[in-house]
């Protein structure tokens, strides 16, 4: 740990540029996975056999492929098929797709936890499927889904480091680059770990807060 503070001051600006990309990747893939996850979940509970089977198989395919392979596929294979993505685009797309499977299962569990009587009450006042979802089911499912959603946010933040494998210069990759050029492994990776932790702690506190509120209801 020799000269840790000295190194910290020196490397901080470079690592911060990595932090920015880490945040961009995390937020981007979080949004994408939420939207996709909602779509899969709605297809799954739609009551239309073809849609629900399609969604179930999609989820299984996505779940069965490691994130890193998905990223390689998007970044290295897609250009052969005529679709060229920047590293950042591929990272957000890959992580977003990978996480959409977990999001979908989480959302589905939330939707299916709603009492059938709620759906019947909605139907009995003439609501169709979509109105029932929007006005009755989803607003109640949100409360059930929120605590696990917070955990997904934390996992997403950490898994965004996998974007380094396709050259996105986020925090982990910046750390690795500095470490390999200065050989100050201990100081650099301690800083990287502390910076991830610093970003996680607000999320952890948020999850705890949300769980407490959900518990009260």
């Amino acid at each position, binding site marked *: 740990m020799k000269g840790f503070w000295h190194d910290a001051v020196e490397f901080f600006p470079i690592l911060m540029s990595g932090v920015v990309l880490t945040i961009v990747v995390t937020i981007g893939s979080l949004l994408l996975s939420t939207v996709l996850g909602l779509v899969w979940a709605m297809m799954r509970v739609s009551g239309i056999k073809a849609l629900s089977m399609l969604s179930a198989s999609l989820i299984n395919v996505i779940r069965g492929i490691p994130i890193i392979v998905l990223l390689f596929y998007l970044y290295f294979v897609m250009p052969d098929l005529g679709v060229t993505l920047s590293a950042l685009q591929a990272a957000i797309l890959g992580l977003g797709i990978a996480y959409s499977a977990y999001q979908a299962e989480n959302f589905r569990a939330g939707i299916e936890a709603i009492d059938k009587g*709620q759906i*019947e*009450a909605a*139907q009995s*006042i003439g609501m169709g499927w979509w109105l029932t979802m929007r*006005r009755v089911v989803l*607003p109640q499912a949100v409360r059930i889904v929120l605590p696990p959603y917070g955990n997904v946010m934390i996992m997403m933040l950490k898994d965004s480091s996998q974007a380094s494998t396709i050259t996105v210069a986020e925090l982990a990759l910046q750390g690795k680059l500095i470490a390999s050029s200065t050989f100050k492994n201990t100081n650099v990776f301690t800083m990287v770990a502390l910076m991830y932790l610093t970003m996680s702690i607000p999320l952890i506190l948020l999850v705890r807060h949300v769980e407490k509120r959900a518990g009260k209801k």
Partner: protein
Amino acid sequence: MIELKDVHKSFGQNEVLKGITANVEKGEVVCVIGPSGSGKSTILRCINGLESYDRGEISVEGLKVDRDASSIVNVRTQVSMVFQRFNLFPHRTVLENVVEGPLYVKKEARVRALERGRALLAQVGLAEKADAHPPQLSGGQQQRVAIARALAMQPKAILFDEPTSALDPELVGDVLGVMRKLADDGMTMVVVTHEMGFARDVADRVLFIDGGVIVEQGPAKALLNQPQHPRTQDFLRRVLHPL
């Protein structure tokens, strides 16, 4: 107004309705009684399409009830339902529960819907609870909100599925009182109930159902005081004199 013709319904191997034929006239109050598992609730749930039926035909004001057709929304806006377990929306206030249908299904103007919603809450004696959430209310209050929610759709008939069975005994009276007032105002009602006193005093007609068929039916007082069929006699004896 509500017509059932030879309605059959099975859950898997279990045939719960074995040919139900019945009419409900406009303004009539019909109570459906019978042992549990006899198919009483299933009849109600078929009338507004919460449940499909296998054979026969159900129509409301000449409109065929088919839960897979888009016309089912028309049926449901004309025939409201009150559930045993209230099924109020817990994430909305009492007033929001009442105006949900008028606002989002019938697309009524907000001001008018809210005004009528408040009037309906006053009618069921809960004007001061408009801004409370359902879980804060007693069962009896929740059921009266559910009745207001049903009325808000301005239905031609209301189906009650054991509306007092989930209530503490001392709260039953309030709900039955509201229902009696509705009956006096000429609302068409089909009530599945174990409240024989209510059936005797308020109903025009009583159907006794057992094993998926209508065993006996007739004017309320006559059927409850002098049942003809041995199964009706047996059932009423057990309900009225359980010891």
